[in-house]
């Protein structure tokens, strides 16, 4: 009997191996191996022309790529832009998502339709929505831009995605505002608030109704109930959302690439990777910049894992 069990287990693990093997091989070859190989590339002087040659496999490692990336005079600006974009984009999308979730939480006629519509910015192809927004806000042909001029909100058409700074006149003083950066952050909020909406809505619906009833009996008004019951109940989902959005916004390339091409003060780290590797044809420097991004990401992931394990212990 003992023997039989053992062979069953052996048989099962062999079967499991066969079943997992195709998936494992594909992911190892196309995700893990390239990630590791990126380290090798970042230590080599590889240019785009050298790709077909044999030089790719020679040793001859160097730290020059890292030196180049870290001493790039643009790097401090890129870091600041990345931070502003990542934090701004994450917070804005979560704030919008929270607002939208509170709006559609309660039953009303047409709720399913509205909720579906609110999710559509997130599921539409990025190329389509990026081009649509840059068309809407285009300084020559943008409908909203001209509508703003016509109604007197704007003095003249504004190049939302290509003006680095704009002077905003407030009563008493004028203030420069990083327009293109704000525009891409706005786009980020528009596109990704549905993600926050879905998660917050699910959490809202899990809050026991009794809590609200008890609070109402104790004389708490709607605002007090929101601040003392709803918000505390949402704390952990909001924290998780921020972490996910932060990591994904940090990783984001498509949106800025399509909206501004990284011009006008919107060059974030992912765009910088692209510029090195495919703009300046310096694969080595591109890989080194990618490693820098990977390193920053690693710090956040480690933080996340620690936070998760602490939550589980509790």
């Amino acid at each position, binding site marked *: 009997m003992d023997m039989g069990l053992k062979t069953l287990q052996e048989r099962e693990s062999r079967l499991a191996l066969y079943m997992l093997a195709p998936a494992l091989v594909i*992911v190892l070859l196309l995700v893990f191996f390239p990630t590791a190989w990126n380290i090798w590339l970042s230590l080599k002087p590889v240019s785009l022309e050298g790709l077909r040659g044999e030089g790719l496999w020679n040793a001859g490692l160097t730290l020059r790529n890292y030196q180049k990336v870290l001493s790039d005079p643009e790097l401090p600006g890129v870091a600041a832009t990345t931070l502003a974009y990542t934090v701004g984009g994450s917070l804005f999308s979560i704030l919008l998502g929270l607002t939208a979730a509170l709006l559609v939480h309660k039953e009303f006629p047409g709720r399913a339709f509205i909720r579906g519509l609110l999710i559509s910015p997130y599921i539409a192809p990025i190329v389509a929505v990026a081009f649509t927004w840059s*068309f809407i806000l285009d300084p020559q042909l943008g409908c909203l831009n001209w509508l703003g001029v016509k109604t007197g909100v704007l003095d003249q058409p504004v190049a939302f995605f290509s003006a680095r700074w704009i002077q905003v006149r407030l009563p008493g003083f004028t203030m420069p505002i990083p327009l293109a950066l704000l525009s891409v952050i706005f786009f980020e909020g528009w596109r990704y608030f549905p993600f926050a909406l879905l998660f917050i809505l699910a959490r809202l619906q899990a809050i026991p109704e009794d809590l609200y009833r008890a609070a109402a009996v104790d004389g708490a008004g709607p605002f007090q109930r929101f601040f003392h019951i709803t918000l505390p109940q949402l704390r952990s989902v909001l924290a998780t959302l921020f972490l996910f959005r932060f990591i994904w916004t940090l990783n984001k390339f498509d949106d800025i690439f399509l909206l501004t091409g990284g011009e006008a003060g919107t060059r974030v780290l992912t765009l910088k990777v692209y510029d090195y590797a495919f703009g300046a044809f310096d694969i080595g420097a591109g890989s080194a910049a990618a490693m820098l991004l990977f390193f920053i990401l690693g710090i956040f992931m480690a933080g996340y894992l620690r936070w998760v394990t602490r939550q589980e212990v509790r």
Partner: protein
Amino acid sequence: MSREIFETQIIRVFRVGGLVVFFAAAAFPFYWMIVSSFKPLEELLLHPENLGLDLRSLDFTSYRQVLLKHGFFRYIANSLYVSLMTVAVSVSLGTLGGYAVTRLRFPGKGIFSAGVLLVYMLPAIVLVVPLYVIFTHLGLRDSLHVLVLVYVAQTLPVSVYMLKNHFQALPPEIEYAGMVDGCSRAGVIWRVVIPLSAPALASVALYTFMIAWNEFLFAFMFLDTPDKFTLSRGIVQLAGSVHLSKQLVMAASVVVTVPVLILFLFFERQLVRGLTAGALKG
């Protein structure tokens, strides 16, 4: 008036106002995408601020040009091919893998979740550089099959993970019953597990389809030959190569957006489940 009533009134006003604002902001870009794709170029140049559309004089020139002159029929076919292949491979390998991780005992099961998390958090731009180098070196880069392989690699971990969660909720007793009746493992998976998992499989399939259909970066970097372009790649090409192409780009954007929105309309529940379980990377 008590505070309760007063605050409830304020909230009602804000709720209605807020819903209107969110509705307009979410819907307007899609509205404008469609409306401007039916306007002739002169109209867009002369009256950029006109938000309306005269339904009696719809202009189909943009669609004709995009589909016939700029080869978008071909791009639609390519996009469909790439997305459906990705779905087929990712769902079938994901089913096998997810089942193995759930039901079978084998050493090293624990690393699995960490691996999924890692793939999940990995920036596409970090992957695109080495993959571009490898496939250029091998001379395989400009190929739809390689693109499918890349999409499969990126969706598989999520497929396995979502299906694992689903299989865990199935009572194993049903499968034992099947095996007692003489089914092999493969027979049990085919005759018992898969029929019971149709909704979960649909979620995974929709999620995977959407990722592959919407994907931009790899299609942009990998495909050089216009005959092989996917829709996203084709639209970027169109926007960059044709002067005064806004109305064409909008017509092409409608073409790429409508299938996704229709799928979403019909399968909202499955798709939302896919989104929240797999938390669509993006």
